[in-house]
């Protein structure tokens, strides 16, 4: 009896010790992935960049939530019309399309949450659920909790936080399981949708801050190009990379210059605020903005259609 109890307790203690110390290690997982899929996203071709480098690169993609917050700060009205319709989910029947559009819907969800439009949140959560399950990462979304939060407008901040956190966990999981190709598609879809929404708002408002934000995304294109080219042995990735190449071309003459100013550190009420010493300037013409938005629209059409 004592022996049995000893084994049981030691096992329990061991399990808890391991979970207590498990964390954010970026080491690539070598264990078999029971969730690996058998279709076009099976990751077999040799990569030019290692999974570890890819993880670093993927983390550098800007959050669409920030873009949504900037759009809201311009005072423009929310428009559901510009979002990807949730009726589309059934037509995304390959892992490639599901992953890309999971990113698209996640950016839409960020936009919806930023504008506190809880009446349509559930439709988008269901779309996310469907696509996430389609690529076998549904376990990261506690949909009952998310739905509960979505039905109470006082909980929208929590909803936003839990949604983003679920996406971050899913992303970490995919990368740890050597499924960075899936992760990169989700991030590409989210980034393009963020730009698409911004482009639509620019067409409506010609807002200077949004134009500047679009301009400074030039650096991200280079990062995405590195990611997608890494998987260019897969035909779908190659086509997506070609589309991105057109967008890169539209950005070619956008100039980003840097001026060095004075750094400032202020301590106020026990809190530190640091103002960066370098300041970037974006030189972008109206013609370039039009060309960039046209390419974003084409790329977004390629993704959602």
């Amino acid at each position, binding site marked *: 009896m*004592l022996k049995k109890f*000893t084994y049981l*307790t*030691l096992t*329990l*203690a*061991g*399990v*808890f*010790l391991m*979970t*207590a*110390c498990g*964390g*954010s290690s970026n080491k690539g997982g070598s264990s078999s992935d029971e969730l690996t899929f058998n279709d076009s996203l099976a990751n077999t071709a040799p990569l030019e960049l290692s999974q570890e480098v890819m993880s*670093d*690169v993927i*983390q*550098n*993609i*800007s*959050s669409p*939530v*920030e873009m949504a*917050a*900037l759009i809201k*700060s311009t005072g423009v009205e929310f428009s559901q019309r510009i979002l990807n319709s949730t009726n589309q989910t059934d037509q995304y029947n390959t892992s490639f399309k599901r992953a890309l559009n999971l990113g698209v819907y996640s950016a839409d969800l960020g936009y919806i949450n930023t504008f506190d439009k809880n009446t349509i949140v559930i439709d988008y959560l269901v779309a996310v659920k469907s696509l996430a399950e389609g690529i076998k990462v549904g376990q990261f979304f506690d949909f009952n909790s998310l739905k509960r939060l979505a039905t109470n407008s006082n909980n929208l901040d929590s909803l*936003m*936080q839990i949604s*983003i*956190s679920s996406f*971050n966990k899913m992303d970490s999981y995919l990368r740890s399981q050597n499924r960075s190709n899936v992760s990169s598609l989700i991030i590409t879809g989210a980034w393009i949708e963020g730009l698409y929404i911004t482009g639509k708002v620019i067409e409506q408002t010609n807002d200077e*801050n949004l134009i*500047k*934000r679009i301009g*400074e995304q030039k*650096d*991200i294109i280079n*990062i995405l190009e590195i990611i997608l080219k890494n998987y260019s042995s897969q035909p779908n990735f190659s086509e997506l990379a070609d589309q991105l190449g057109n967008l890169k071309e539209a950005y070619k003459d956008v100039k980003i210059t*840097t001026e060095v*100013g004075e*750094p400032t*550190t202020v*301590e106020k009420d*026990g*809190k*530190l*605020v*640091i*103002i*960066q*010493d*370098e*300041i*970037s300037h974006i030189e972008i013409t109206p013609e370039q903005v039009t060309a960039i938005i046209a390419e974003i629209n084409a790329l977004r059409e390629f993704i959602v259609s």
Partner: protein
Amino acid sequence: MKKSLYTLLFLLTAFAFAGHAQCGDDLLKEALKEMGSSQYIKDFTIELIKEKKDVKTGYIKFSIFLNSNTQYKFNVANGISNVDKVVMQLKDKEDTKVLASNLYNGKTFDEFSFVCRKAGVYNLLFSFKGGQEGCAKAVMSLVKQMQ
């Protein structure tokens, strides 16, 4: 003999539970609470443990992309067993220049805000003074977009 075995088992189990609470979701909840009204962007797990061969722990680094004209907040919650508070440093892409840190005038703050004026890739580094072991959770959030 039986008594000491029970004590050992109790201690092992208690340590395991304490460790879990110390560096797990509770710590993240604390960091999220301290984030206040800012908009959550992502969180980071910091666990620095000495390997057998090491005299001290090093640092853990995360790459992030920051947009210009944007104020971000970086706040941390420290594990209860930490000897010292975790030190956060925001560095440029090449890791050559410290742009911001929660260590200022000899004092370690639980947070700092950074007004980014140049969009790009940055590195966020976490370490413990003197290379001690410890754990922490950090949260990056959006304070406001400057017009």
